């Protein structure tokens, strides 16, 4: 991958604003947006909200590719059936949410299995090889369970869509990987893997039946552990896969190029919890090291600022300290004094409890070492987001 200098403030945003930009400005200039972060922070929803906003306000054909959307969100995007088919969200749905979109919003889900099958179909040298691979028992296993295969295929799919030239903007949700970087390295790793000497070395003896002296200990152990039939299955599978090597490597390099392109940007999503935030920071650093474009940071599910207000703290403390006194001052129309007192004490307690968390979050935010140009905080919505109106409401906070 070509090494580039990390972009400075606003570089590549194209609007020449120079000042800290906004997600709106970012999305207006980019063709690929990759939404990433640790699991459970709202990546998918953020990706869908960004795409919906872009379709409404910026126009053009916008596609959001989701990995594993909540059912209600999938339904809102018209994705009932699972598969790689891209579907348009009807303009009526936008009108029902009270907006007239300038452009079109399309949505797709990532079907890992299907994508792998397509990939094999594309790269296999001939039909018999393709069929042999598709029917190999290990192949099913690998594509289904090999965790990194999801990462690879997500990037592969992105490349496929991007190069088809069908969309002005593609927003991609990323799989909830254990390590947020896996998908960045997936194309290269895949290429390395298929080109590895180790792979050739391991498959030779099973093709030629000659075990070299150097590899004998390994096979002795492997045979004892796994049984030679199984190893032969593996070898057969990889021998078949090797026939696709050239195609794979060319492809992986092309995918890496798209990721590094200036028209691609990464938006990191996190909550203000310690663990996801650590991962987000790690990820932002990694993007910098690789010379990839960090577009912005979305801080999701943030408690409202009113919890940080010092005057309110005093009020809450007074409610907790003397609920009966305050209740007496309020008078009887609010309810029986003992009940009013209980409610007031509870209100004060609740405020102080939530304040502990809000303070912690504010501190976490202040301690962020790397602050991208665009940092948006999205409040803790007290309802779930499962329709277009909700997405646009969330999107409004991002813009």
């Amino acid at each position, binding site marked *: 991958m070509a090494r580039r200098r990390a972009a400075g403030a606003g570089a590549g945003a194209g609007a020449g604003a120079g000042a800290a930009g906004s997600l709106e400005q970012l999305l207006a200039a980019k063709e690929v947006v990759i939404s990433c972060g640790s699991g*459970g*922070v709202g990546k998918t929803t953020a990706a869908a909200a960004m795409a919906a906003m872009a379709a409404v306000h910026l126009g053009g054909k916008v596609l959001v590719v989701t990995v594993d959307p*909540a059912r*209600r969100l999938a339904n809102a995007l018209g994705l009932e059936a699972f598969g790689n088919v891209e579907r348009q969200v009807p303009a009526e749905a936008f009108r029902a949410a009270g907006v007239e979109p300038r452009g079109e919003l399309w949505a797709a889900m990532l079907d890992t299995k299907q994508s792998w099958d397509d990939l094999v179909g594309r790269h296999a040298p001939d039909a018999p090889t393709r069929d042999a691979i598709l029917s190999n028992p*290990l192949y099913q*296993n*690998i594509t*289904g*369970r*090999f965790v*990194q295969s999801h990462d690879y295929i997500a990037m592969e799919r992105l490349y496929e869509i991007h190069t088809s030239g069908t969309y002005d903007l593609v927003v991609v949700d990323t799989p*909830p990987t*254990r390590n947020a970087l896996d998908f960045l390295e997936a194309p290269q790793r895949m290429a390395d*893997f298929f080109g*590895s000497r180790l792979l050739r070395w*391991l498959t030779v003896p099973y093709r030629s039946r000659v075990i070299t002296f150097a590899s004998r200990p390994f096979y002795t*152990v492997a045979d*004892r*552990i*796994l*049984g030679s039939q*199984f190893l032969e*299955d*593996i070898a057969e599978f*990889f021998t078949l896969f090797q026939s696709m090597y050239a195609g794979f490597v060319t492809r992986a390099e092309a995918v890496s190029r798209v990721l590094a392109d200036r028209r691609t940007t990464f938006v990191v999503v996190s*909550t203000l*919890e*310690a*663990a*996801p935030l650590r991962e987000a920071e790690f990820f932002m650093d990694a993007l910098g090291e690789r010379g990839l474009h960090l577009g912005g940071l979305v801080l999701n599910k943030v408690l*409202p600022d*009113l*919890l940080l*207000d010092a*005057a*309110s703290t005093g*009020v809450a403390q*007074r*409610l907790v300290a003397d609920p009966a*006194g*305050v209740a007496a*001052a*309020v008078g009887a*129309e*609010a*309810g029986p004094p003992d*009940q*009013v007192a209980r*409610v007031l004490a*509870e*209100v004060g307690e*609740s405020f102080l409890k*939530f*304040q*502990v*968390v809000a303070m*912690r979050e504010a501190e976490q935010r202040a301690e962020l070492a790397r602050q991208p140009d665009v940092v948006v905080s999205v409040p803790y919505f*007290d309802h*779930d987001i*499962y329709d277009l109106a909700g997405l646009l409401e969330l999107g409004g906070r991002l813009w």
Partner: protein
Amino acid sequence: MTVDLLSRRLLFVTGKGGVGKTTVAAALGLLAAERGRRTLVCEVDAKGNLADFLEVGRLTFAPRAVQDGLLAMAMDTEQSLKEYLSLQLRIPLVARIGPLARTLDFVANAAPGVKEILTVGKLCWEVRERHYDLVVVDAPASGHIVGQLAAPQGINELVKVGMVRDQTRWMLDLLEDPATTGAVIVAAPEEMPVNETIELAGRIEQETTVDLAAIVVNRVLPELFGRAEEEVFERLRVAPAVDRLGLAVGGAVTPVLDAAELAVTLRRTRAGHLGRLREALDPALPLLYVPELFTRSHGVRATRQVAEALGEELGY
């Protein structure tokens, strides 16, 4: 009600990312150790935050003591393979295999299930050898746990002969026995975690032989008001009550009332998801509630509070 949770000997704790799976695993470890059971907590996902929850240094494959009767380790499949080859197979060639890590990586990628079996195998072995009364596993998140728990069966089907096949048999025996092994799913009362928990509960039942022992619902918000109190609260939010309230406390009271409103709404939303979860699960399955902790951080203090909450739920 099936077997008491902590009287089992191997517990896999799983759940969607971000629900507090590691905290619960650490808390179960603390709780068991405090009840006199020699316990090992093992982190399988190399996220490395189990150490933070227990306030110990970086975890390694060799267990390190956390406190009396509680040890913690981190899974490392390469080390597990070495240990397995030398301890159990007595294969003298280990040193000559060369770069084990690369070979293992290759084999693990080539043969899904190898890494899983090395993980599950090590855990089962610790249980079989009775090194501990209880092994608590901070298992991978939802998507991967099924593959891990089903690995011994999968290998059994793929590998027709050889040592591995012989080895998977005793593992399966341990995993199948509800008195020995249980899975615990950690959920949070939110839409996606609830959906995933329902789905995962079904998959564990159908695709693995492991008994689903309990669901832990983390971050349950306390009920702020009863019905009558809610009416009082509504009246306090409007004039003239709110003005008198402001005068009485000598400050703006609306933000504090707004914060309570948010708490009430959050609780209501979460209660709705909780209701869905309850409806979808087998009524015989224990549901343990851990309240939302309003703590400063996620260190051993928070873990201890979760342990106490779980202890209460389990009737200790």
